[in-house]
């Protein structure tokens, strides 16, 4: 990462888009655990493997028995429940540079507008706080379940979190010196039951769009050292 990272710029973006941004990562509140919630949590665990591994090539790397887990995942995702999002951006930097920046999770709120804070708990576990409507927050713990330095980071949320999700980010050299293809895959439990209005409000927004814009800000921060903005510029009376 260049030394020109502008936290203030990112924060301005955060306040601009603010509460509207939280969708993809904070999905399912399980605080009020009901039998249905527990069932969903189990389903979520099944989802996690697919989300974490992302695509076939990664199964081998993760050492997962693909056939069994895929069956479970398919069952868990039956119907409209499972939500998968995949977004990619090509960034003009090396896979190693991008991996190192991303792996420092505490930096992610610089370009992920819905995040308030990420704290690294130990080498594999981290605590995440994201914005929710009406000034509330949602929180979760996550652990890394697969990592190939310079290539891949995969994670899942841990039991007891407000959110059940799994995901991966991969860094792959683009051809002909075109930088690195950064691909985020995210899988999460869809909202259900009495969680109600809050989650419905969240999902009214497009999770793919949120990740797309997060990745764009990541690209801008890496390539430019700052995130372009007009927030705070003069305007006439309107």
């Amino acid at each position, binding site marked *: 990462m260049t030394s020109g990272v*502008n936290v203030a710029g990112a924060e301005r973006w955060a306040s601009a888009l603010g509460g509207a941004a939280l969708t993809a990562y904070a999905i399912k509140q399980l605080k009020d655990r009901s039998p249905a919630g527990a069932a969903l949590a189990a389903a979520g665990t099944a989802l996690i493997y697919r989300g974490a591994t992302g695509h076939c090539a990664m199964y081998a790397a993760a050492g997962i028995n693909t056939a069994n887990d895929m069956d479970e995942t398919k069952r868990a995702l039956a119907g409209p429940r499972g939500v998968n999002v995949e977004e990619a951006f*090509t960034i003009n930097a090396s896979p190693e540079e991008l991996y190192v920046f991303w792996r420092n999770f505490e930096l992610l709120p610089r370009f992920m507008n819905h995040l308030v804070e990420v704290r690294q708990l130990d080498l594999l576990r981290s605590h995440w706080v994201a914005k929710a409507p009406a000034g509330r927050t949602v929180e979760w713990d996550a652990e890394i379940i697969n990592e190939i330095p310079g290539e891949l980071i995969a994670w899942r949320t841990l039991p007891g979190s407000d959110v059940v999700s799994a995901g991966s980010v991969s860094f792959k050299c683009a051809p002909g010196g075109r930088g690195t293809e950064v691909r985020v895959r995210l899988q999460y439990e869809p909202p259900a039951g009495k969680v109600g209005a809050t989650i419905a409000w969240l999902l009214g927004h497009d999770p793919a769009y949120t990740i797309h814009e997060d990745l*764009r800000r990541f690209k*801008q921060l890496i390539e430019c050292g700052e*995130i372009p903005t007009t927030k*705070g*510029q003069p305007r006439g009376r*309107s």
Partner: protein
Amino acid sequence: MRALVWHGTNDVRVERVPDPTILNPRDAIVKVTTTAICGSDLHLLNGYIPAMQAGDILGHEFMGEVVEVGKENTSLKAGDRVVVPFTIACGRCFFCERQLWSLCDNSNPNAWMAEELYGYTTSGVFGYSHLTGGYAGGQAQFVRVPFADVGPLKVPASLTDEQVLFLSDIFPTGFMAAENCDIKPGDVIAVWGCGPVGQMAIRSAFLLGAEKVIAIDDVPERLSLALKGGAEVINFEEQPVFETVKALTGGRGPDACIDAVGLEAHGATLDAYIDQAKTAAYLATDRPSALRQAIHACRKGGIVSIPGVYGGFLDKIPFGAAFQKGLTFRMGQTHMMRYMRPLLDFIERGLIDPSFVITHRLPLDQAPQAYKTFRDKEDGCIKVVLKPHEITIH
């Protein structure tokens, strides 16, 4: 500070607004000494551009003095006299690295909007709708310049503001239009539209070695300025364009055709665009027809170069003629930073003085009236320059 503010169709006003401040580390604040109204600003005045918001500050052709720089900007300092290009480029993405500056990946904060319309975003532009970033423009006393370590060009004290101001847009734009014609000895270039960009394209074509330039318009003073620049002229109100162009090229047709008219209709939907195109068709210059004529008139294997701005879906383009004649199309917003320094050199060497297009010089507070004069082509108006720090004495 005082700035020209867009409030709606046919409603621009000079009013007091807050001064700009540094927002990002690579920014600079420029005190604007001279600015200009561009033909494309008229589409904002006329309300053709949907992504405008009341309160937007206009203006994308400007120059001045640096008064403040961001902490990461080491290439400028307070006191530098600079011309600022109308496009904003980060200088570090795939496109900037390949000199395709107007295609910068990173400088449009509203990239999602452009992606919806065009598939991918292009660069930010000053004072030109939220589709290209919603950046406050330079028809103001001060302006914030993002990525100011990339765009602004320092200019020598030996040249006046008027001599170098048009390095901000129309001179590089006209020059790139001519360069895109791949001019070879003996080439005849036809130019549709003799507004300021057309005038620069005519002179640039000669600078690049054109044998003959044919200029097409219907405004007498613009035709006479083209004539002064060495072009042969066609008044399309009086002469049939295709037949005249053919006759002037011994039946061959021009080797390259430049459409310096354009049709600036940033329709967000097909319907909106068609509506705008229909509206535009009522205008005297019959804008969509310039491109059709250029394609039709161009010789076999020729080039159609398009500096005129298009925004949406074009109706009834003679693509069969383009295909059958094997035409090449070159177009796009100007890659400003590729041309500014070499063209400054042209000016310093006395090869051209771009100030020849200026017809009106006014303080900023007269800008609202000047927009209308320019739009209506009254009073021989071809190009208006504005002085933001001068006040009208009544």
